């Protein structure tokens, strides 16, 4: 059975990835799973300079989901390269670095810096994080701005470039199209839906940042729909995510058009979820007598 898949220049031994921001820099999960068994590992979003992030409370549970407003806290690219990347290099699992910037210039600089490091296999541009107000949040919602930032980053790196799309848009397929036209090797979707929760007794938002990003099983139907809509319109691969907690969920995303899947919130519920999903995909394929992921990807019958 062949469950390998290619995302740009990266060859994944299997389609099960981790979603940025939910898997730290890998170490935290080493006690629960064999990192070598992952299709790819995507690290917490990085920026040129370290970011402090938002004050707590940063997370709140919602029906079958959760809101987070971490505020992109990260140690910065330099510290990552020095302190975290060496650890990750020991595994034979491709490392994909999620990153973001405050301006096109910063995106380009960050991509450049990351591209010269050894042991990074791909870059995932976060143009969609809904946690921060103002300026850069529009990167992922205005096609023209998206085109500019993606094509600029494209020129700055030879690594596989994945653009991570925001679901908080009217027309997701248009955004995917734009990313493809601007030179992306793949798109990943979906990032979190913007949400809010209020404590009715204190009358205060449950998150210090007021709004946060909704993730987990609650958003799966929206994510599957968006993957399907994008699959019909683009020819680069899609990494599907949003509420995956089981192999059945992963297969659903693949039928909708995802070449690979990423698991975020699911790791919190079950730190071994990636391995459970991986073995579940294999069992499903043998039960259904499938030899390759090609027989699954995009094969929903409408």
């Amino acid at each position: 059975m062949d469950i390998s898949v290619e995302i740009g220049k990266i060859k994944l031994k299997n389609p099960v990835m981790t979603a940025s921001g939910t898997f730290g820099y890998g170490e935290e999960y080493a006690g629960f799973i064999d990192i070598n068994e992952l299709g790819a590992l995507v690290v917490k979003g990085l920026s040129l300079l370290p970011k402090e992030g938002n004050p707590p409370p940063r997370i709140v549970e919602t029906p079958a989901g959760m809101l987070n407003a971490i505020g992109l806290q990260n140690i910065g690219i330099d510290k990552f390269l020095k302190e975290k990347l060496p650890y990750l290099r020991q595994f034979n699992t491709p490392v994909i670095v999620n990153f973001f910037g405050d301006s096109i210039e910063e995106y380009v600089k960050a991509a450049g810096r990351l591209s010269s490091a050894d042991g990074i296999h791909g870059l995932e541009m976060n143009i969609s994080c809904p946690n921060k107000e103002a300026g850069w949040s529009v990167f992922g919602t205005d096609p023209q701005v998206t085109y500019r930032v993606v094509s600029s980053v494209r020129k700055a790196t030879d690594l596989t470039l994945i653009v991570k799309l925001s679901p908080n848009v009217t027309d997701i397929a248009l955004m995917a199209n734009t990313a493809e036209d601007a030179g992306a090797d793949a798109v990943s979707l979906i990032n979190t839906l913007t949400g809010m929760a209020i404590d009715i007794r204190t009358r205060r938002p449950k998150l210090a940042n007021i709004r946060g990003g909704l993730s987990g099983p609650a958003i799966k139907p929206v994510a599957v729909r968006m993957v399907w809509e994008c699959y019909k319109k683009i020819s680069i691969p899609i990494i599907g995510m949003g509420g995956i907690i089981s192999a059945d969920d992963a297969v659903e995303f693949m039928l909708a058009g995802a070449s690979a899947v990423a698991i975020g919130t699911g790791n919190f519920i079950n730190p071994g979820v990636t391995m459970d999903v991986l073995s579940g995909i294999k069992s499903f394929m043998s039960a259904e007598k499938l030899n390759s992921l090609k027989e699954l990807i995009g094969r929903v019958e409408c």
Partner: protein
Amino acid sequence: MAKNHFLLTAHPLNTMPSPDPGQFFMLSVDSRLDPLLKRPFSLHRLVLGDLQFLYRVVGKATNILKDKKAGDIMELIGPLGNGFPVNEIEEKKPVLIAGGMGIAPLVALAEKFTERQPVFFYGARNAEEILCLNELESIGITPVISTDDGTSGRKGFVTDIVEEFLYHHPSSSFDYALYSCGPKPMLETLSGIAMKYKIKAYMALEESMACGIGACLGCVIKTVDGYKRVCKEGPVFLSEEIIW
């Protein structure tokens, strides 16, 4: 057990490192999606290799937990985080201060300290919410009790009584070390007291958690070195690190 408070005894089906007082476990009540996330509970006591948790019913997960039956199987991960330092301070006199549910981890800690005759302060809202007296007695500890409404022990905040104690019992032959768990405002006050009397205070904090293992950055508190994760760098912090 007092109204709304329950004791859960869990027999581990897999081997695990022996937990320290102040460490915690993430527990799922079952695999349904509501509630979705695991919930953190401190080790209350370790009894013949079984884990005991003491919890108050406040919401979704704890309401389900209380209806579990002997023999039910649940998923736990842990022990997690850093517990209270026990050996580092051999020359010091331990003063334990529990506020409300903060009693949960302090019983395991008191057990570690029995030979050093810790002083134990315990504050709660009312007599009904004073728990574990038998357990404490069995290890030779009689806590100084206070309640907000005076229905048991002294009336008033436990922090006032701690301060009074430190004021009246200065010591030149040894130092005190404070060990505490309880609501944030209590810990903040205690932190000020510790500073005033120049004693070390270790406190177990709480924040909403998603992963419990340091991966999501969800559970941070502000410290003099920036945000730190309660689940990983904590839950026990030295009070002087914390920015309230």
